[in-house]
């Protein structure tokens, strides 16, 4: 019995640390359990706080009483050195089974107490929750807004300026515009129309070259006025295709600047057409897509037709890839802009030939 008496630990001998949560409530916690949290440990050692109710350690705001309870359970288990890795792992797996909101609170609280092992455990659990869920399910779980446009959801995530759909759309738009101009030209055989024709090619050049500034020249100021006028007109008509285009264009980051161009030696011009096969047309790089000055001399009916075609094409482009490919290919031989075989050079040269006078970078 005397040995038994030795083994009994009198309650008064055990040390407690006093902790206060942000709501004002104070509790005492076994010393070895509380000291498992680095933040509490530091407070005790550096400031001497926590030894009595009046000098309770004030815990960070992110730690509410119920979360504190969870954290202390964790500490109480893990601070015992004798436990095996298997035991700890089993405990952890059971421990993190809680709803997502609580898991987030726990992660946040553990972080404020600098309890890294628990932060790791909870972040891993949160990552596992994200894994294997669809975007919609993720949004529901974490209460996130559904604020991406349809295009953004389908777009390749990087290099938006390299998106072949945008390039294809631009190219098609330019080509369609040219076709309509040709038709107009045939209708009116006046000299004025010739000028319009030249201007339109120049304008094509300028937006193709991404508004380098060099090719716009004198026409800029004149165009600006017309742009403003056209923009107002456009805004009021609220054409969906334009919006789509503007959205895609506006979100495209500027990837080219003149300094970089000077630093880099580029493949010789004679090889340019091959280089610029499917993807490299310079106009894709700085998408200041302002087509209003080009449309100046098209009558509204033609413009509508053009916009409708583009809208139709934009819609088709935004469907799934395999369907897209089939549709694009079925548009006909003359519109075969995406080569289906590997050796795409020949067909792409066809589509660039109309702009063959353009010196690409």
């Amino acid at each position, binding site marked *: 019995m005397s040995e038994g008496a030795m083994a009994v630990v009198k309650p008064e001998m055990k040390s407690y640390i006093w902790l206060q949560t942000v709501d004002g409530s104070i509790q005492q916690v076994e010393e070895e359990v509380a000291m498992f949290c680095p933040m509490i440990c530091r407070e005790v050692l550096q400031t001497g706080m926590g030894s009595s109710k009046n000098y309770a350690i004030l815990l960070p705001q992110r730690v509410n009483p119920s979360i504190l309870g969870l954290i202390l359970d964790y500490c109480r288990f893990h601070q015992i050195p004798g436990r095996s890795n298997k035991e700890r792992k089993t405990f952890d797996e059971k421990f993190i089974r809680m709803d997502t*909101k609580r898991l*987030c*609170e726990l*992660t*946040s609280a553990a*972080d404020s107490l600098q309890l890294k092992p628990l*932060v790791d455990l909870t*972040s*891993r659990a*949160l*990552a596992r929750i*994200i*894994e294997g869920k*669809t*975007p919609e399910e*993720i*949004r529901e779980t*974490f*209460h*996130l*807004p*559904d604020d*991406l446009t349809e295009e*953004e*959801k389908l*777009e*390749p*995530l*990087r*290099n938006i300026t*390299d*998106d*072949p759909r945008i390039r294809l759309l631009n190219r098609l738009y330019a080509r369609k515009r040219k076709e309509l101009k040709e038709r107009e030209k045939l209708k009116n055989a006046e000299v004025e129309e010739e000028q319009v024709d030249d201007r339109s090619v120049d304008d094509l050049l300028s937006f193709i070259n991404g508004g380098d500034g060099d090719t716009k020249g004198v026409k800029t100021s004149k165009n600006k006025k017309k742009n403003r006028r056209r923009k107002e007109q456009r805004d009021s008509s609220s054409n969906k295709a334009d919006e789509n285009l503007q959205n895609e264009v506006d979100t495209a980051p500027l*990837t*080219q600047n003149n300094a970089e161009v000077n630093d*880099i*030696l*580029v*493949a*010789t011009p004679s*090889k340019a057409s*091959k*280089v*610029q*096969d*499917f*993807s*490299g047309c310079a106009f894709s*790089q700085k998408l200041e897509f302002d087509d209003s000055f080009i449309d100046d001399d098209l009558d509204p009916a033609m413009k509508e037709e053009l916009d409708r075609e583009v809208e139709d094409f934009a819609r088709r482009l935004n469907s799934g*890839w*395999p369907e897209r*490919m089939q549709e694009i290919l079925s548009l006909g031989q003359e519109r075969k802009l*995406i*080569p*289906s*075989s*590997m*050796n*795409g*050079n020949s067909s792409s040269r066809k589509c660039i030939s109309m702009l063959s006078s353009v010196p690409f970078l």
Partner: protein
Amino acid sequence: MELIPGLPEDLARECLSRVPYQQFPAVGAVCKDWKAEIDSPGFLSQRKSAGQCQALVVLVQARPNPIGKYCSPGLKNMHPPIFLPTVFEPLSGRWADLPSPPGCCDGLPRFCRLAAVGTDLVVVGGLDPVTWDVTNSVYVYSFLSSEWRRGADMPGGDRFLFGCASDDDRLVFVAGGHDKQKNSLRSAMAYDVHMDRWVQMPDMARERDECRGTFRGGKFLVISGYGTEAQGKYDRSVEAFDTAKWSWDPVEENVLEADTTPRACVDGEGDDALYTCRNRSRDIAALRGSTWTPVAELPSDVASQSHVMRWRRKLLVFGYGSGCKPDGVSVLDLCSNNKWTKVEIPEEFRGTVDEGWVLEI
């Protein structure tokens, strides 16, 4: 808007950085903030510094081609194997198919070259699987969106069996190979993945057909190869391109042992400059200083002409057992006593490996 409501930003970012790479596209489709996070260059570097990266071995492998599955009528009656991208995760031992580029119904080009920059995998050149013409095509697969896009073709004439490697930062380097007339090439160029633009490099000192490209210590190394007049006689020299100076270092002579095929060479780590798989002595040797030191004997079930790759301090040797298809990946751990372990290849993934590249994302 918080990334994850209830969590401080840095913790939310950490959780996101822990998701497996297969979930990247879903994460990017949740909401604007999540998309911005995954698009940012900080995302990948956070994964790297937190040790959350996943190692992926991407391969261009022969896959069975059941009748009628692939679209080209020309191949229908022949059913030769078709070469498609697959991915092997050395840590988990998992094998999976990667999607094929749209327009590549007959598979990827044969003997194409692979390299990766960040989360973008680049496939350059090779032979058209139907016509067997040399193609200068470039396909890029983004692991962020799990989508393919076409890149700017390699400029200049046909180039085949060239050396290729990336700095895993911005550029994919290409050097040597041969042209349509089987003239060995001396020229080199680099592909800027982000800008989708090819950049000329100065010529090498020597013509190098069938050379091996690798990247080490800030330099693009071109190993061996042969000149037009010395068909099949592999040179023993190495040329290194200093990317900072944008110039070639003087040729390093007598680096390789006689009778070494460049394709059996792999860049080294730490003190070892290069590793090679030696057929005659049936071992792996390391180049330390200027001598080749045997490191480990090849396991008995590994035949001579296998594909060799390096992943961190391990060498992956795709071995052919008794049959003519690789049935296992023998992994040599260079850290722990040069021990070999074998990872079995699942039945459906036992196809000849044309080319491979290791990514850490």
